[in-house]
């Protein structure tokens, strides 16, 4: 929550000579973060970020309180000008003659109200207007402005009813029932879902959506004579639910939902009475109704000196600890080396455990005053899984061979996923509604983005796909996928072959129909019988696409490399050209050549006229030198087999 505070308003409660820049620096290092300070006429405005746990500091007074504790640690004198939490003139009583409330204390921990008669509605004085407007709140008239003023100054939301519109001077503060309707001050009509905090008057009409926004039926208007000043502490969870559920995010609701201090009600209502007198010439009743059955009892937390020092990582004196905590309104008692801390009411929501007390000590001591040391101690005895290096290695190979890595969004449209894919409840749009089940559509899109700009490219990505599982989180399968534009099929497949060879894997490519691929234009990549992926042309696409299951690839490539002696006998190498009939699968021809035990390797060197295939073949026998007649014998076997199996001829 961000708040804006005028420097002069802050100094009404904080007595210091510190300059604004000094305040910014000190507060940010030890307390609320001051994002910036801006000139405002001859004044300055602080923009301060207040964290959700510190709603007690979301006000002028709250920041002054922090400043008074923090500034002296930087050698700057500062003193908090405290507000009086009582009045000799007004009494807090359980029963009054002007209002008959029935309150469920579970919904409203503290209920106070006071009748103020004969108010004069007019514009607020310039000083009030300036303070409100510097905080980003529009000045309306003195009555509305009073509520906002108190909220900004003290952090306690305040409401005013037109007293004469409360039928029967009766109020029932209760939970709403499902289907009940209420019109709020801004004219919006809400049908309630139930469990909201509402107030009903003597005629059963809903006059307030408590803690969120006042009801239209009881709203103050230009004819209002008497007002009911209304200051409460509501159940935070219910306020939040109502405000979020109805999307009615008022400042009051964002404060109430974080849990306000019931003790803050007293100064807030007294300040209200005072302002109504000075600004509206209204006269308050001397008795304030105050229903507060479960009044605040301070909590105590105990912790040891050793615990504090261990968490801080330094030694620190008991006196310093007490000084820091006392400056924040905590009370401290030492019993030997054990500290008992009494938490002030305004911190009772967020200081609950010894760790919370350590934080208070640490931040006032100053994080900037702590030394920096990397921890010592035992190492974990575990080390990072080699899978990460493996993934990195693959990416390096591919980029080394010209691949460009992309990261595309895991969230895709319905057309991009298989049936049963996981769907988001609250997507940003229809194009990112599902968790992808394949990288193919994303990469086809990625290729399209570059077509026209670049003639040839190879894009690849290593990312998860999400495969639903019953009663469990989906399987997150890490896939490597890539797409080629402007590459010949042999070039693209060659990159896959090279990658698998670098990983010392013996693979087979088998024609198989695969989802998303054009019929007959895809091969499955197999290691033994296990499929690890596929490469081919996707349906209706000119691009070549491949995908590989990284986890399988990792597992299969985790074998030790066995050293092989290099043959002492030289290899014989020759080129043979085969003329093969149309529609011969050259992969199978190659496999046949390779299957001869004396063939150490081969490559398909050239293809011409569509049916002339020149293979470059290495013959080698590990045990002896091959003679020309040996080679001829092997060659004859191969030629014969190719003739029988494929009807191919050796080219003379």
């Amino acid at each position: 929550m961000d708040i804006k505070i005028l420097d002069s308003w802050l100094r009404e409660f904080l007595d210091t000579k510190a300059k604004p820049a000094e305040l910014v620096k000190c507060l940010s290092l030890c307390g609320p973060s001051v994002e910036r300070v801006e000139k405002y006429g001859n004044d300055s405005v602080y923009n301060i970020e207040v964290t959700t746990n510190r709603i007690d500091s979301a006000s002028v007074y709250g920041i002054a309180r922090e400043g008074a504790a923090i500034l002296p640690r930087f050698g700057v004198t500062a003193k908090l000008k405290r507000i009086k939490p009582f009045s000799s003139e007004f009494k807090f009583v359980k029963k009054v003659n002007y209002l008959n409330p029935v309150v469920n204390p579970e919904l409203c921990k503290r209920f106070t109200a006071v009748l103020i008669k004969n108010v004069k509605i007019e514009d607020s004085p310039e000083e009030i207007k300036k303070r409100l407007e510097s905080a980003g709140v529009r000045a309306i008239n003195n009555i509305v402005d009073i509520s906002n003023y108190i909220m900004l100054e003290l952090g306690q939301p305040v409401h005013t009813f037109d007293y004469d519109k409360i039928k029967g001077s009766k109020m029932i503060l209760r939970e709403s029932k499902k289907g009940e309707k209420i019109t709020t001050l801004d004219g919006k009509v809400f049908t309630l879902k139930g469990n909201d905090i509402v107030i009903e008057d003597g005629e059963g009409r809903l006059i307030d959506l408590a803690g969120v926004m006042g009801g239209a039926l009881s709203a103050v208007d230009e004819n209002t004579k008497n007002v009911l000043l209304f200051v409460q502490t509501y159940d935070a969870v219910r306020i939040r639910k109502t405000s979020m559920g109805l999307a009615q995010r008022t400042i009051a609701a964002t404060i109430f939902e974080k849990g306000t201090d019931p003790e803050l009600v007293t100064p807030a209502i007294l300040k209200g009475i005072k302002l109504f007198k000075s600004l509206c010439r209204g006269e308050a009743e001397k008795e304030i109704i105050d229903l507060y059955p479960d009044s605040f009892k301070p909590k105590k937390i105990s912790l040891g000196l050793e615990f504090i020092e261990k968490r801080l990582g330094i030694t620190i004196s008991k006196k310093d600890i007490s000084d820091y905590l006392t400056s924040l309104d905590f009370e401290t008692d030492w019993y030997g080396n054990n500290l008992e801390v009494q938490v002030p009411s305004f911190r009772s929501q967020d200081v609950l455990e010894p760790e919370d007390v350590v934080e208070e000590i640490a931040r006032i001591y100053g994080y900037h005053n702590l030394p920096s040391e990397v921890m010592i101690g035992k190492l974990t005895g575990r080390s990072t899984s080699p899978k990460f290096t493996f993934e990195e290695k693959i990416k390096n190979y591919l980029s080394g061979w010209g691949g460009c890595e992309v990261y595309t969004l895991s969230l895709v449209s319905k057309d991009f996923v298989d049936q049963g894919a996981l769907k988001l409840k609250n997507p940003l749009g229809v194009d990112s509604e599902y968790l992808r089940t394949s990288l193919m559509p994303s990469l086809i899109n990625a290729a399209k983005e570059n077509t026209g700009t670049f003639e040839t490219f190879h894009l690849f990505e290593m990312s998860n796909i999400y495969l639903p599982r019953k009663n469990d989180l989906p399987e997150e399968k890490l896939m490597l996928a890539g797409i080629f534009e402007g590459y010949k099929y042999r070039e693209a497949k060659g990159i896959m072959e090279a990658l698998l060879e670098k990983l010392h894997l013996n693979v087979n490519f088998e024609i198989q129909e695969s989802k998303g691929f054009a019929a007959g234009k895809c091969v499955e990549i197999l290691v033994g019988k296990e499929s690890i992926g596929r490469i081919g042309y996707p349906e209706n696409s000119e691009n070549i696409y491949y995908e590989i299951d990284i986890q399988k690839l990792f597992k299969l490539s985790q074998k030790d490399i066995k050293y092989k002696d290099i043959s002492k006998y030289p290899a014989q190498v020759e080129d043979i050209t085969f003329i093969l009939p149309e529609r011969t699968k050259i992969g199978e021809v190659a496999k046949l050549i390779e299957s001869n035990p004396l063939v150490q390797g081969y490559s398909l060197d050239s293809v011409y006229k569509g049916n002339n295939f020149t293979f470059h073949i290495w013959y080698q026998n590990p045990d002896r030198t091959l003679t020309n007649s040996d080679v001829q014998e092997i060659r004859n076997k191969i030629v014969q087999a190719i003739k029988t199996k494929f009807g191919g001829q050796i080219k003379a």
Partner: protein
Amino acid sequence: MQEEIMSAKNQALAQITGARDNTELEQIRIDLFGRNGKITGLVKRIKEVPQENRQQVGILINETKNTLENLFAEQRNSFKENAREWFDPTIPGIKPKIGHLHLVTQAITEISKVFEGIGFERVRYPEVEWDFFAFEGLNMPKGHPARDEWETFFVDAPENPKYGKVLLTPQTSSGQVREMLRVKSPPVRMINIGKCYRRQSDISHVPMFHQFEGLVIDENISIVNLKGTLSYFAQSFFGKERKIRLRPYHFQFTEPSFEIDVSCGNCDGRGCKLCKAGWLELGGAGMVHPNVLKAGGINPNKYSGFAFGWGVERTYMMKGGIHIPDIRLLYSADLRYLTQF
């Protein structure tokens, strides 16, 4: 004498340039500079020159010698050139296709190296996660306002009775409790790097981004260690001269919590347009909340720890001072952007 030298020089120049090969050239050299060579003879005769001219003649002979020797070398080289096959080493090369790793991959590699160097173990945890690990186990019970800060995507899937709703993890902190449950007993030194998702899309936010999360748990882990580790990171990653500072902040899963700033590299911490008074915001950190340790089955009375979780993209861009006007470009596939980094 001077005339004699000049004529010998001119004659020699003609002979050298007219020579057809090295043998001929060598013969000319001997005729000039050999024991009975023409120039050698002239040198010997310097002493016959009258004293007043002797210096001048000496200079002339030396100049002649130098000129002729240079010409010999030139001529010899030109014979060599002509003997060689013509070759032009200046012709432009044929480059292999130049590939490219994504900025995020480069960043992750660098970040993990820094932490692995001080004994951190890299892990990866689910992107599609249970509410328990993303929120509840991190001390953020249902309906807690702190949950608002993470604009969370929810998945349309049945709730688990124990772990609650299915969502896309909005931060890598969801790996904290998972790591504690996996490791069972400290020490823990985890660096969890992964994809996170938040319901936001504008020039500085992408619905999908990456975070790296550090978690250290052991006996006697203190704020001093948190500062030490993060300083070590900042100095290894950004440069030796960089400093960090801690500012108080609030997260439900750490107590105390901090925002970590690093001194601005552009202005050396003096304050400039790119930073806030000399500092750049890195991200959040804090001492692990005892409730989180409990959720991970670790005794908070015996052990303590710290954690931090920062954006990979953001941190990396702060390093190089890379200014990308719209962060969403990183997740487009447009090579014109991607190949720049």
